[in-house]
């Protein structure tokens, strides 16, 4: 490297005679120096001390003659971003002002021989060097490498930071209690938690100062705990609440250690405590929910239950708890209000009485919750908010007096419809409700809603049950009444039947006796008439005729009486219906009428006849009458032919099966205009002399048919023949033939 000797360009050179080699001088200085030519914008390095070269990892002599940024580029962010180099600015400042410039500690990384950058911190001072004419000749840099100090310092700072962070995040507070001097020294967190100044905490305060900050409900217990552990114990663990300066309640868990001397006297009591308020809130909320659930499931009297729940909430969870429910007229009624102080409860109730229920048209608060079915949550209520929401000065005063600082309003829903609200109010800023609290309140409202729905359903079920029971009882009573009436009726009917049966029997007996007694004189008339005829015929002369007419009359009377008896006996001597084979009956009739049939050369055609439910005797009577008629009323020119046929019929307006009997003859026939007459009692279409008979035959037939619940009619053509048509039910229900 060619050495460039620095030649001082002094106009006058008093010490010329010295012939000092500045380079050599510069080189041997133990400190680190750089020199720059001032009129060089690139700030070419004029000289460097050997110490500098060594420290900056540059081969001595290499840097000289090069622009400073060639050797030591400014890699600071500022230079890279803006092109401005603080380093060069400092040099320029010296040029400008002619005064030295002391740079703040700056980070100026330098290249290693391998090209990588090494982090360095410097304290740089730049001096101007003037010649004898006061012209700036050189810029000299005094370089102080403070890298080690800085890094060491950073490490400490970071450690401290981390500790602080840890302390803050864990909200750990620490203390140390020197028992002999009765001074408890605490850190910042402790001071915060106990509402004392940091300064006092650092200085140390006696125990009472800290005890005062403990929440009054816990104070006595903690005092005793501490005195107990001081007496005998080496570890202290406890949980209690403190009240900060802002009046906020915090939960803490405390651990401490007792250090004793050889005599066993406590000397030191250091410890730490952790703020567990959030956790405690969550824990408590779960407990509240559990308790609330228990209360809710106990009783179906939801009003009482809600009051119990409201009471459950104060004073630990909140200062005020109010529950309001819509009544049948859609007016919000206060069902429960709770506060630790009974006087305040009374005040609240009185307020409600005088103010009345809230206006449900309001855009916020209870009305809004009811409308939307969504909760409202005001974690922290400032005075501004009170001013904004108060309707008038009176209300504002009221709100301020209440000192509400945190509010949760949650809806109570039955069948998904909001029917009420639970309001939780904290006052005096003692605590601000958290999201966890809102969750708890919603959970509570849900359970209460469920309980109310259940209660409503239970009520409904009870009512329905009561209604049903009532209906059942009414039905039962009606039924019993009906039964007794039916019973009465049945006995009436039974009695009536009995009566009728008896009267029937009497009638029957009467009819029988009457006819019997009536027949008796007739028999005498006939008998003696007969004898008279036989024994005195020759002397009677015309008297014979008179006698014959008398006998005839008597005979007719006898027949009439018999027929009357027979007619009356259709009902009185009627028998039970049993299966009767009609074919068999006809065959019996035919055999009975054998004589008449053979006399008239009558032919009978019997086409399949069924078995029906009937009175066998009466069927006999019926068929006998009809067949006899068929034979009797035959035409002169034709031997009687009688056809009997049957078919099964179900009439459209009836559901019973009928047997349709047809007795067809080829006899005289009759004019159908006399149809009704022929079935009447003692009605005849021919005179006495033409055909024997009283004219009761068909009347009896009709009575028999009617007794069987059937019908009889006929069709006929004068001179051709007649067909008698009978409808008889195939079957009868039991008891149909009681009479």
């Amino acid at each position, binding site marked *: 490297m060619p050495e460039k000797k620095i030649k001082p360009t002094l106009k006058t050179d008093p010490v010329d005679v010295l012939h000092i080699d500045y380079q050599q001088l510069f080189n041997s200085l133990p400190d680190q120096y750089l020199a720059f030519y001032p009129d060089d914008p690139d700030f070419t390095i004029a000289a460097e001390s050997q110490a500098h070269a060594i420290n900056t990892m540059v081969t001595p002599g290499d840097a000289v003659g090069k622009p400073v940024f060639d050797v030591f580029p400014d890699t600071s962010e500022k230079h890279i971003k803006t092109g401005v180099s603080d380093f060069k600015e400092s040099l320029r400042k010296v040029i400008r002002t002619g005064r030295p410039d002391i740079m703040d500690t700056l980070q100026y990384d330098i290249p290693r021989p391998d090209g990588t950058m090494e982090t360095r911190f410097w304290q740089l001072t730049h001096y101007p060097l003037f010649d004898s004419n006061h012209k700036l000749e050189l810029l000299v840099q005094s370089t102080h490498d403070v890298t080690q100090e800085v890094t060491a310092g950073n490490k400490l700072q970071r450690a401290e930071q981390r500790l602080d962070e840890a302390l803050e995040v864990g909200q750990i507070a620490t203390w140390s209690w020197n028992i002999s001097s009765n001074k408890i020294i605490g850190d910042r967190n402790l001071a915060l938690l106990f509402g004392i100044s940091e300064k006092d905490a650092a200085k140390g305060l006696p125990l009472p100062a800290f005890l005062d900050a403990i929440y009054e409900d816990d104070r006595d217990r903690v005092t005793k705990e501490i005195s107990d552990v001081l007496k005998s114990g080496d570890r202290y663990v406890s949980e209690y609440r403190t009240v900060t300066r802002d009046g906020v309640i915090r939960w803490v868990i405390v651990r401490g250690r007792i250090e004793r001397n050889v005599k066993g006297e406590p000397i030191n009591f250091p410890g730490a405590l952790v703020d567990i308020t959030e956790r405690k809130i969550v824990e408590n909320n779960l407990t509240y929910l559990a308790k609330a659930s228990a209360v809710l499931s106990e009783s179906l009297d939801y009003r009482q239950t809600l009051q119990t729940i409201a009471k459950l909430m104060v004073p630990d969870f909140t200062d005020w708890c109010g529950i309001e429910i819509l009544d049948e007229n859609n007016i919000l009624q206060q069902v429960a209000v709770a506060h630790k102080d009974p006087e305040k409860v009374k005040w609240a109730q009185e307020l409600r009485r005088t103010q009345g229920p809230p206006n449900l048209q309001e855009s916020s608060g209870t009305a809004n919750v009811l409308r939307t079915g969504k909760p409202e949550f005001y974690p922290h209520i400032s005075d501004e908010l009170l001013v904004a929401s108060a309707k008038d000065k009176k209300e504002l005063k009221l709100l301020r007096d209440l000192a509400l600082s945190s509010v949760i309003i949650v809806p109570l829903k039955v069948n998904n419809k909001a029917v009420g609200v639970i309001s939780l109010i904290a006052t005096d800023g003692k605590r601000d409700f958290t999201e966890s609290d809102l969750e708890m309140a919603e959970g509570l409202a849900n359970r209460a809603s469920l309980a109310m729905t259940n209660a409503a359903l239970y009520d409904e079920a009870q009512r329905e049950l009561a209604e049903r029971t009532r209906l059942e009882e009414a039905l039962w009573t009606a039924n019993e009444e009906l039964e007794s009436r039916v019973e009465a009726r049945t006995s009436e009917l039974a009695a009536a039947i009995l009566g009728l049966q008896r009267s029937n029997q009497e009638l029957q007996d009467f009819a*029988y006796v009457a006819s*019997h007694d009536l*027949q*008796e004189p007739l*028999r*005498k008339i*006939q*008998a*003696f008439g*007969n*004898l008279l005829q*036989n024994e005195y015929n020759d002397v009677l002369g015309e008297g014979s005729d008179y006698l014959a007419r008398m006998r005839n009359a008597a005979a007719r009377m*006898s027949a009439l009486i018999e027929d009357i008896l027979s007619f009356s006996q259709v009902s009185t001597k009627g028998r039970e219906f049993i299966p009767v084979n009609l074919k068999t009956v006809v065959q019996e009739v035919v055999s009975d009428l054998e004589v008449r049939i053979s006399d008239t050369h009558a032919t009978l055609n019997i086409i399949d006849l069924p078995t029906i439910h009937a009175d066998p005797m009466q069927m006999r009577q019926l068929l006998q009458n009809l067949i006899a008629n068929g034979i009797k009323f035959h035409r002169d020119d034709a031997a009687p032919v009688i056809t009997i046929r049957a078919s099964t019929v179900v009439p459209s307006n009836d559901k019973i099966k009928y047997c349709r009997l047809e007795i067809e003859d080829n006899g005289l026939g009759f004019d159908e205009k006399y149809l009704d007459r022929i079935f009447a009692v003692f009605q005849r279409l021919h005179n006495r002399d033409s055909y024997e008979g009283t004219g009761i035959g068909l009347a009896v037939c009709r009575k028999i048919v009617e007794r069987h619940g059937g019908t009889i009619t006929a069709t006929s053509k004068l001179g051709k023949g007649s067909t008698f048509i009978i409808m008889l039910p195939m079957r009868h229900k039991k008891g149909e033939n009681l009479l």
Partner: protein
Amino acid sequence: MNQNGIVILMADDDDDDYLLTQKAFKESKLLNSLCRVKDGEELLDYLKCRGQWAKKRECGRPGIILLDLNMPKKDGREALKEIKSDDELKDIPVVVFTTSKAEEDVYKSYQLGVNSFITKPVTFEGLLQVIQTLGKYWFEIVELPAKVEEPSV
């Protein structure tokens, strides 16, 4: 008196009927000793030799009783019952001879042990026929129990 000397005792309250029956018997040439009592009481008195027949019975013990059912004081049904339950009298055949055709009378009579039941015909001819048949049956065809001696007074 018939060939066998059997007495026919007729119990009938009706004089006309008795007259006719008598006539019929006569015409049937059944010259039995036809005795008559007017009602059930007389019948039993006669049979038991009581009352007016305590001392003597004109016809003696009857071989057959013709019994009408409808009689005053004691009717035929009662008399029948008594006769057939009396050891001394039950062997006497009883023929009910009544105007009644009632099935119940027929049934009850046979139940009580009547030997036959005949309904009095309406006409005289009929009556004659019945009496003739009756005579033939009971006196020619049928064996009657042996006559018991008259109890001496």
